[in-house]
């Protein structure tokens, strides 16, 4: 819907369009749900190679529950959308990714207490999400986890915003960085999560969580485009 506004009217809208409102936040979550569903088998196979083959199922189950939860709710802030998302993921996903994505969305949401937020506010929220994942999972960059996609995406988003990029370009930059981050996990040896049990045999495979994180930012780029 951002796109529509942009083409409809002039400068006034340029500002308006660069806000993330409740509708756009919900559109983002719905887009994530579609993406994890479309990539379910890919995520399962990536997890089968170095984990236990449930990441795709876990996220599909989780985001199905999230859509239900959002259906009943009439959120009054952007944050409520994300907090509901995080809380629902926590109580429906399980595994490692449930608490991690759950806390990430909750941490981000807690900072966005308005019906519409600026890219700057969203950048801060993404930092909060990254911090929350780092704190709960105790992973560092290069451990071959979702963090390897989340952290660079977060940085790229802020860089773009700071350099006066608009929301669509910042989201696009974040999506690109997340995708590159996910790909960058291929040669790595996992040091966290069950992939670490494989030792050197974990090398040569892309991390499923980093891959799903890339999907999440790709979805953001999609709805802001």
């Amino acid at each position, binding site marked *: 819907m951002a796109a529509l506004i942009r083409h409809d009217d002039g400068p006034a809208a340029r500002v308006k369009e660069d806000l993330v409102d409740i509708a756009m936040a919900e559109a983002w979550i719905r887009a994530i749900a579609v993406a994890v569903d479309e990539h379910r088998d890919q995520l399962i196979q990536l997890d089968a190679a170095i984990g*236990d*083959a*449930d990441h795709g199922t876990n996220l599909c189950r989780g985001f199905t529950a999230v859509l239900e939860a959002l259906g009943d709710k009439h959120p009054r802030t952007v944050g409520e959308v994300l907090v509901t998302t995080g809380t629902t993921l926590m*109580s429906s996903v399980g595994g490692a990714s449930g608490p991690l994505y759950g806390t990430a969305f909750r941490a981000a949401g807690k900072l966005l207490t308005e019906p519409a937020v600026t890219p700057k506010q969203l950048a801060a929220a993404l930092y909060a999400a990254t911090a929350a994942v780092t704190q709960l999972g105790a992973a560092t960059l290069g451990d071959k986890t979702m963090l390897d996609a989340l952290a660079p995406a977060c940085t790229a988003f802020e860089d773009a915003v700071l350099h006066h990029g608009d929301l669509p370009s910042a989201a696009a930059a974040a999506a690109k960085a997340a995708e590159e981050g996910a790909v960058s996990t291929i040669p790595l040896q996992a040091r966290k999560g069950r992939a*670490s049990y494989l030792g050197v045999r974990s090398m040569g495979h892309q991390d499923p969580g980093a891959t799903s994180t890339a999907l999440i930012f790709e979805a953001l780029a999609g709805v802001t485009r």
Partner: protein
Amino acid sequence: MKKLINTPESVLSDALAGIAAMHPELRVDAANKTIVRADAPRPGKTALVSGGGSGHEPLHGGFVGPGMLDAACPGEIFTSPVPDQILAAARAVDSGNGVLFVVKNYTGDVMNFQLAADIATDEGIGVRTVLVNDDVAVRDSTWTAGRRGTGATVFVEKIAGALAERGADLDKVAELAERVNAASRSFAIALTACTTPAAGRPGFELPGDEIEIGVGIHGEPGRSREKLRSARELAEIALGAILADRSPEPGEQAIVLVNGLGGTPLIELYIMAAEVAAILSRHEVPIAANLVGNYVTSLDMAGVSISLCHADTEMLDLWAAPVATPALRWGC
């Protein structure tokens, strides 16, 4: 994929319906997906709650009953339960004496049980957690998420469960559970990969003459892939790793678990048991008690895990104490 299921999505709830139908002595909460002793909460008793991903049956639901667990919370296949589930189990069994969470050391399990523990504590439920991490195939270092929890879970749940049944308080039960875990080691070998209902095909392809050494119980590949060997050589590999990591101390005797991973016939487990017994007697490790069968499985994976608990006299006494669960029953 050929399985006796209705749909991949309904595996857990359909199986819970079966447990409910066949075990009146247990209370199955279909909504919260918990399996609870019918007589819970037991006044004055420290409660034990365990859980984890499904696909390891009889672990954990098959160990709920007098002398062992008060409740189990099974997650989806290979997926740790969610905090709500764990919390529901804790609430169902706490009699005011507190709850011990027996948690296998996997990132997801640790996180979800921790989240549940935080909320339970806020609600005034006394919670302590014991992490089971017995799998010597994984080196416990900054390079890993730590050792996996596998066969030793049976030792911990049986022995700590017996102490709780005798009226010990939460701290004493937790302390013993820690000691049992510290005294236990496991090692597993897979002959085939397993197939999760959701994936629909084996987790990895294994040629007809190759096996995976040092696997876990979630269908992941092991530390190395090698050529198939004789039962004798495989037992040497497993016990070699186990005894190298922790040799028996004076006064200790062994509780041995020769465990099938799900697709291996019992006759093969007894062949492994013979080799295990021969090796232990060579090392002059007396076997005080043992289990041979499928106790901690990995769906339809063919293979075996060997677990050894270097038990002191208290542990042996509690191991022998009465237990009445679907999968473990003696003394009553």
